[in-house]
């Protein structure tokens, strides 16, 4: 199993509060991603990183920010959580282009409930 750890695994918070989810990898992979999973939508890309301090937006990035100060850590921040951000969040990593087939290795997920 790929060494990917997400924390916290479960969190309940109130609307308007800031929330940070952490993803830690031990695989030294360059690429890291944050997805959210919602019924009827599958997994949607929020942000991704292609190196330390190098990040870009995905398809549902509004309301989220990310930071990557070290290869192994990728943080997802909700500056002011809203009920629409209640979801299960998955971190994923991938190897370099030309290695493998573009497969993603996922963490176990972080379930966030915004009341």
């Amino acid at each position: 199993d790929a060494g990917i750890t997400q924390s916290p695994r479960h969190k309940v918070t109130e609307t308007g509060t800031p929330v940070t989810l952490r993803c830690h990898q031990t695989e030294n992979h360059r690429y890291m991603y944050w997805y959210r999973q919602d019924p009827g939508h599958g997994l949607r890309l929020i942000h991704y990183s292609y190196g330390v301090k190098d990040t870009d937006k995905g398809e549902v990035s509004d309301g989220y920010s990310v930071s990557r100060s070290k290869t192994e850590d990728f943080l997802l921040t909700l500056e002011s959580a809203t009920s629409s951000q209640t979801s299960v969040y998955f971190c994923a990593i991938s190897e370099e282009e030309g290695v493998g087939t573009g497969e993603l290795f996922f963490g176990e997920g972080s379930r966030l409930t915004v009341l």
Partner: protein
Amino acid sequence: DQQVKQNSPSLSVQEGRISILNCDYTNSMFDYFLWYKKYPAEGPTFLISISSIKDKNEDGRFTVFLNKSAKHLSLHIVPSQPGDSAVYFCAASDWTGGFKTIFGAGTRLFVKA
């Protein structure tokens, strides 16, 4: 606009029979097509993939077929087993400085013993 579509939310199959899961996509720039399997309370795990230059890839009981002209791919599971019961996500990957992978909504497969 959904770039990857799985139009069947669920599928029920008898043990030992074939399971066929379908997926359609709209973007002709995708390089890889992948299937992921997800059990409850776990992260998705990679199952099988196919590159855009092939039309078939087989791995044990799992075969993926790609029809580029129709922008359609399918996953065949033969024979189906109760342990295959899970949600299957179709995904398409476009390499532009990171494998930005777009997922379908998923199909929940039930394999009845």
